[in-house]
């Protein structure tokens, strides 16, 4: 196998090869690091590379194999950590000049679990400042580029994570999603990403945004995401909102198929603008579920237009969390984030309570839908990737901070906590990836993974590689 093929081999396969001693963790890590060294200067997926540490860990992993030690499910597999997530002893910039030199003394639980499972951590991946937008540029780390076309955004906020996976710079990436930040870049980069149920993967320190942030895996195959999720899911005392229940056996139960499921497909959630080509590709992918044995109906799920709700809650949280930095740091902050904070400052507490009351009621509409359907399919996004540094595509109305209009299929399920994945659905005529969103009932992470796996089997995507 040549090095590029090795770098594009799924983690499930790599883990098996390492266990069977047909692949050495050192060889694997060296190949991935070499690819990162070659491609990262162009793509900017990693903001902090841990090459030496990774090689040390790989050698240690190799010794463990030789010594016939008990090996974890990710033994010797390279993974990346998003720079919004803390990792002991590694600078934790969160995409901001304000924290350019911050070095935490603890691992987030997701990092602890990946290490314990034997994973090799390659480094930290880029994010826009504090993950505030679904795009891939940042005042501190600059532009992260879409591997399918240089100069286009990779989406965000798990921007570097998506690019690393799409470009073969590590098969597994940890992402986080407060309003689409796993699903948006997954769709723009043609990879698979799942935002699991709220609380499924512990999040520490807890993001202060009224239970919006979810941690999850990003991968090229569904099986890889299932494997990674099975490692990182489960309760942790560090996060008081982490779920009590243990995760299901995602890996073994993946192949259930779609037969007999009642699936709704909503092209626009009843109110969203979608570019015609995206609509067409995602519709075709959704209707494809019919040939897999599901019953697919086009639906208006009746959730109602919640754009005002996300815009105001998002900005209120940005203001509450970051306003204190403005006096000293404004000039070095993302101007869009500054505008969002300024907008958020206007809300009174009573406004906030009203908004949250509406958000609570939003759940009632979503749960009513899932009493009738097993899954909801939607386009992952309204558009294909557009030029980096822009908040909106050129053919959409522009705005100083509101990037949400083209990404509005995502955040409703941050309001509600339902599991939701973005699955590659095809390419535009221009060669840019398009994603299909698969949403499941509360806690039904397994059902979303199973549907994703069925979709992948029918229309595999992982053999497609970007021209990097």
């Amino acid at each position, binding site marked *: 196998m040549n090095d590029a093929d090795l770098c594009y081999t799924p983690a499930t396969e790599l883990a098996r090869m390492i266990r069977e001693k047909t692949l050495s963790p050192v060889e694997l890590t060296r190949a991935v690091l070499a690819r990162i060294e070659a491609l990262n200067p162009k793509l900017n997926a990693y903001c902090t590379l841990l090459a030496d540490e990774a090689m040390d860990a790989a050698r240690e992993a190799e010794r463990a194999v030789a010594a016939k030690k008990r090996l974890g499910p990710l033994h010797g597999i390279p993974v990346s950590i998003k720079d919004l997530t803390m990792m002991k002893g590694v600078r934790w910039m969160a995409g901001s000049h304000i924290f350019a030199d911050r070095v935490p003394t603890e691992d987030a639980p997701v990092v602890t679990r990946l290490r314990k499972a034997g994973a090799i951590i390659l480094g930290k991946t880029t994010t826009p400042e504090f993950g505030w937008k679904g795009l891939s540029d940042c005042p501190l780390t600059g532009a992260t580029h879409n591997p399918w076309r240089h100069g286009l955004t990779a989406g965000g906020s798990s921007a570097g994570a998506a690019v690393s996976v799409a470009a073969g710079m590590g098969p597994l990436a940890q992402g986080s999603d407060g309003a689409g930040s796993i699903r948006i870049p997954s769709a723009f980069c043609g990879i698979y990403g799942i935002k699991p149920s709220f609380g499924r993967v512990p999040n520490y320190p807890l993001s202060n945004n009224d239970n919006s942030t979810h941690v999850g895996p990003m991968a090229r195959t569904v099986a890889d995401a299932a494997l990674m999720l099975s490692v990182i899911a489960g309760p942790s005392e560090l996060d008081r909102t982490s779920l009590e229940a243990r995760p299901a056996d995602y890996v073994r139960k993946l192949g259930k198929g779609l037969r007999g499921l009642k699936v709704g497909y909503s092209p626009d959630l009843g109110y969203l603008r979608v570019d015609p080509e995206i609509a067409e590709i995602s519709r075709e992918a959704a209707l494809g579920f019919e040939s897999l044995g599901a019953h697919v109906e086009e639906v208006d799920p009746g959730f109602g237009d919640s754009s005002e709700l996300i815009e105001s809650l998002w900005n209120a949280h940005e203001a*509450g969390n970051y306003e204190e930095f403005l006096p000293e740091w404004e000039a070095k902050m993302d101007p869009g984030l500054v505008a969002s904070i300024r907008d958020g400052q206007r809300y009174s507490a009573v406004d*906030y309570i009203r908004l949250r009351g509406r958000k*609570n009621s939003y759940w009632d509409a979503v749960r009513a839908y899932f009493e009738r359907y097993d899954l909801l399919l939607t386009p992952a996004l309204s558009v294909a990737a557009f030029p980096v540094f822009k908040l909106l595509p050129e053919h959409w109305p522009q705005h100083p901070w509101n990037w949400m209009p083209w990404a509005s299929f995502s955040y409703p399920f941050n309001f*509600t906590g339902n599991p939701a994945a973005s699955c590659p659905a095809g390419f535009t005529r221009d060669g840019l990836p398009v994603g299909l969103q698969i949403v499941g009932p*509360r806690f039904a992470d397994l059902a979303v993974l199973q549907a994703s796996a069925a979709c992948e089997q029918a229309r595999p995507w992982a053999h497609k590689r970007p021209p990097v």
Partner: protein
Amino acid sequence: MNRDDLCYTPATELAKAVREKRLSPVEITEAVLERIDAINPKLNAYCTPTAEQAMAKARAAEQAVMDGKRLGPLHGVPYSVKDLVITKGVRTMRGSKIYEHFVPEEDTPAVERLRGAGGILLGKTCSPEFGWKGVTDSPVTGITRNPWNLEMTPGGSSGGASAQVAAGLGPLAIGTDGGGSIRIPAGFTGIFGIKPSFGRVPTYPASNHDMLSHMGPMTRTVSDAALMLSVMAGPHEADRFSLEDGPADYEELLDRGVGDLRIAWSRDLGYARVDPQVAALTERAAQAFAELGAQVDAVDPDFGDPTDTFITLYVLGAGGGLADLLEEWESRMDPGLVTVVKMAASFKGLDVIRAQMARHQYWDRVRRFFDRYDLLLTPTLAVPAFRVGQLVPNPERSSLRDMFAWTPFSYPFNMTGNPAASVPCGFTDEGLPVGLQIVGRRFADLTVLQASYAFEQARPWADQRPKL
């Protein structure tokens, strides 16, 4: 058995006697209704008794027994529901003129479950307006009194529930607890009450109180609470924060003892001012756990004083949603609540977000403590019951801070969601009950029940009855 004894018989025994046809549901219900008729005028525990429906249900329950039908775990056992909680077809005033004529069209899941388990609804119990305070009087229902001394408050906001259970007006009551509203009245009236883990019992409609609200059982014995909780608990789609797993078999597993537990005793959480009689009684109660074989350490848990954070969350939770109602209803609302609503209107959105952040940090201290200990014991309250019509023990000092100064032990665990119970642990020289609070690790409802049960075996209380 005379009728008084019947009214003081635990629900576990009533259920057994009904199943074994030694007691008829009609006989039980008649006895309890008769006692309510005689005693409720003195106490004002029930604001909406449902005598006729209860008798009809009792007759149907009797018929079911005679017909050899499958019987639920609470078949033929009477229970009450706090007036903040919605009940299908039964007036739900929420202690407010605003809802004086409100008749809900659905049950909250816990009520639906109690009905389904064969329980017989006796009526709705009094609450202060929207449950805003720790004593029970409201513009629509007037003053509710403590069965141990009619001049004293039974606490609140589940004050009708506590007065009912203590006075033998029904063995089971649903309470709710957003800052202590199960434990405060349980402490003041010498009964058992447990606020289970956040999400253990689904709450619906969703409270907009920032995940502070919990629902739980109030009873005379720990076994009764275990039985009732096992019926009320478990996931429900109506509440997206309800926990994923079903409850443990609390009743079956109660008798485990505390011999291997590490227990901490804190008399003041490091900052509370406690009445000397209360301090002495609770300290002695804590020692009982050492006699039962547990390791009991006197500690300062070093959580820090969260009062300011809680006040912000509380004011917005209690008052934030009512701002729009002031114009029409102010003159008919509890003036104290009006003050809270006006205070809420003075907060900025940023204040909420910052309080939420402080709350996350508070959890971090509490969870570290529970790395070292299985249980924390504290007094339930800083004082014994005080006069009705007052907001605080000393009416000269009745600011919002003073209001929380006598309940310093309860609201911390609304902020964190830990399970916490109040067990009766003796009487003051004036004959007023005193409670000991038992707090468990996240999700450890069973451990809290087991410890409560062990204490109850060592220092039984249920034989004590107020003279009425």
